[in-house]
């Protein structure tokens, strides 16, 4: 099967619904294993940091949730651009499915960042470039969802919210490079940096497990939400009866 044939087949709602269902266990099972290892090791077995002591253990939640906040938004922006240019409704469905997930992980990132900032910086919040741009990302997610909810007609909601998602993408590189461009209170990159990661292997491996685990968790949750979006958008999903609701 050619790539385009495969792509067109996947872009049909019944096929995408079925594929998302089939992918779910491939995402959640390794996610549970990776997060069990990564979070458990990060919390109890990784050595304390020489400067921050045990407080640094928040990184095992904070950094992956920051990554998910950017990954979900970038995926939303790309899917929205695809939906606007090629009029693929499934891309709108994917964007709508990802928004609440991205928003919740952005909120988790901000709150765990505050909980880390209090003992390290002496403040829960500072109007710092990194913190402020991440807060703007949360507002973009909330704005996206509010805009969708403001329209009764789904097609208009899709178009308007897709434009917002694409425009908001400009904030993503600002978040990433904020610690480089401005004199930030926030520490610089720990994992992806020139000269290699700034942490020993005993801390790094569980962190990488958390990054992969949380990414798979997001994929799993996105599959569930995408299936719901697909069914809600179908006028008469007779194929649902043929597939059987439990035949993933």
């Amino acid at each position, binding site marked *: 099967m050619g790539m385009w044939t495969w792509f067109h087949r996947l872009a049909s709602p019944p096929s995408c619904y079925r594929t998302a269902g089939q992918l779910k266990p491939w995402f959640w099972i390794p996610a549970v294993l990776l997060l069990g290892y990564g*979070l458990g090791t990060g*919390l*109890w*077995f990784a050595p*304390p940091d020489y400067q921050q*002591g*045990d*407080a640094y*253990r*928040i990184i095992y*939640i*904070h950094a992956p*949730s920051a990554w998910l906040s950017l990954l979900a938004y970038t995926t939303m922006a790309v899917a929205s651009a695809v939906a606007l240019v090629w009029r693929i409704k499934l891309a709108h469905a994917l964007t709508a499915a990802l928004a*609440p*997930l991205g928003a*919740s*992980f952005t*909120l*988790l990132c901000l*709150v*765990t960042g505050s*909980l*880390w900032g*209090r*003992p390290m910086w002496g403040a829960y919040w500072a109007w710092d470039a990194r913190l402020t741009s991440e807060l703007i990302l949360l507002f973009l997610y909330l704005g996206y969802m509010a805009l969708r909810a403001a329209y009764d*007609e*789904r*097609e208009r909601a899709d178009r308007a919210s897709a434009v917002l998602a694409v425009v908001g993408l400009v904030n993503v590189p600002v978040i990433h490079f904020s610690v480089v461009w401005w004199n930030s209170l926030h520490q610089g990159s720990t994992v992806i940096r020139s000269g290699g990661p700034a942490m020993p292997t005993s801390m790094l491996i569980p962190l990488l497990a958390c990054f992969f685990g949380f990414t798979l*968790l997001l994929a799993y*949750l996105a599959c*569930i*939400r995408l*299936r*719901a*979006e697909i*069914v*809600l*958008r*179908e*006028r*008469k*999903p*007779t194929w*649902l*009866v043929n597939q059987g*609701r439990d035949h993933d």
Partner: protein
Amino acid sequence: MTEIGAMGSYGVYVYGSYLLMAVVVGLNWWLSARRERLAIEQAMRRLAAHDTKGETP
């Protein structure tokens, strides 16, 4: 191994973060699964009633 309570004053921030993560992940999972189940049930009811209006006119 770090024992519970051995983190001193940092423990509340570290364990608070882990607890919050568990709540966020749990809520996301529960709400997503619920949304999927309700969407399917709604579609099944629509099909049973031969209602072809759906959500999108």
